[in-house]
């Protein structure tokens, strides 16, 4: 019942984004730091990026994901809403690539890269 009006993916995606943010913040204090939480968080971030693009394919930008939605209509005064834009899709590919290289230990991330990735997760996961 809880997912009847909000897509199930939306409910769980934000958990993935939250875990990815934690992993990226952990890495920023020591880019060589590595533990299960960091690795799992980065993998969650990769899945999140793929899901963001999938969501965009299913529901083009600006279109409601579930047609008539009484819940959304009843809260239409809430701050910004929206599905990911084409920009977010393109950005998600780049972020996924970055995370994949970090997970495979091919790349040691720089601070600006981590800030960029965190901002991506913050923006896309707080779009309502």
């Amino acid at each position, binding site marked *: 019942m809880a997912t009847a009006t909000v897509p199930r993916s939306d409910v769980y995606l934000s*958990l993935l984004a*939250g875990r990815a943010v*934690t992993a*990226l*913040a952990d890495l920023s204090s020591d880019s060589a730091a590595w533990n299960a939480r960091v690795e799992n968080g980065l993998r969650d971030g990769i899945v999140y990026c793929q899901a963001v693009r999938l969501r965009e394919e299913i529901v083009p930008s600006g279109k409601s994901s579930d047609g008539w939605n009484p819940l959304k209509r009843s809260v239409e005064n809430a*701050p*910004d809403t929206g599905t990911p834009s084409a920009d977010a899709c393109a950005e998600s590919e780049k972020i996924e690539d970055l995370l994949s290289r970090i997970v495979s230990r091919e790349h040691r991330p720089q601070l600006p890269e981590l*800030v960029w990735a965190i901002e991506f997760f913050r923006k896309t996961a707080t779009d309502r």
Partner: protein
Amino acid sequence: MAGVPELRPDDSDLERRRFSYVLSEALEKLSRLNQILERQKVFITAEHAGDESASAVDPLIEHLAKHTETFLDNSSLVALFLRGAQLNEAQKKGAIAALEIFITRILRVHEMLLLLPREAAKPQASFMLRDCFGRNDPKSSIVLTNFISAYEYRFEDVLDKVNVEQNERGNLTQGGNVLCQAFADKDNPLAWAVLAHEYGHALDDSNKISQGLVFGEGPESIAGEDLNVRRKRDWDSAVVAETVADFIAAHVLGPASLMPILFVEMMYPRLKKVERRSAGHPPTPLRVQLVCEYLKALGVNTVDFDPVFEVYKFDYARKLKDMEEPERSRMERWEVRRTRFFRRSRTR
């Protein structure tokens, strides 16, 4: 705090204070939501004894628990941030992002309360209004809403929120005064201050205060009036009505009447777009300024609340800067127009 707030340089102290306010607001809402959900679970269990089927409440409780756990993974980072430790940019952004994602989910669960059986507002909220405004003033009912900052005062406005067509509402124009309160705040005295603003609307309507200010002694509607003139007068009337309601709430509760509005706004990750704003509400920084000036004229000192106003201003400027174009420019133009309106009104 007039007009468009200037963007201030990074201020770690303000940032830290903003974070602590938002965190406290989020935890308070989380705690209240958990209480509501656990209570609902007891009701459901009692009604369906022996029934093993899952209820609507369990996924919501589980969802909140998972997000709480994910947020708590950042405990060390959050503690360092609050203590003012030296953090790199990614750590700062990480702490803020973790909190914003957490809050967004809390707000989502609050919206889901729409799916649960209704609970009633605490009678203490009505007692508070009666004590503040006297027993002879218009009677109002308080109902709970699933929107965390949906405080309306007319039944028609509540229906408007769910897009009931105008023709269906035709017979409901005498719905009376219905003050909406966020479900999570049903027993939160701090949020009752906002009810005072809505009650201010009821008093304004019954005493025709803002109507008198805008239309004078003349009729509210003039036959054959130019549509643009009419729209302008309606807009003026709506803006003045909101300000009158703010003043009425401030008259009985002082600067505290603004606190729930500021805390709820700080909790949202971004500003509302112009088209999503109520037609009548002036920009919040301007509302704060007008209420402070009003209280000053009454001889009420607001200095104890200045730290919150300062943090709110910081938060607002940050979110305005984060808005993408052309939204930001629209927002700035909107703010300038409303600020000018009040400047002109003051000189008149």
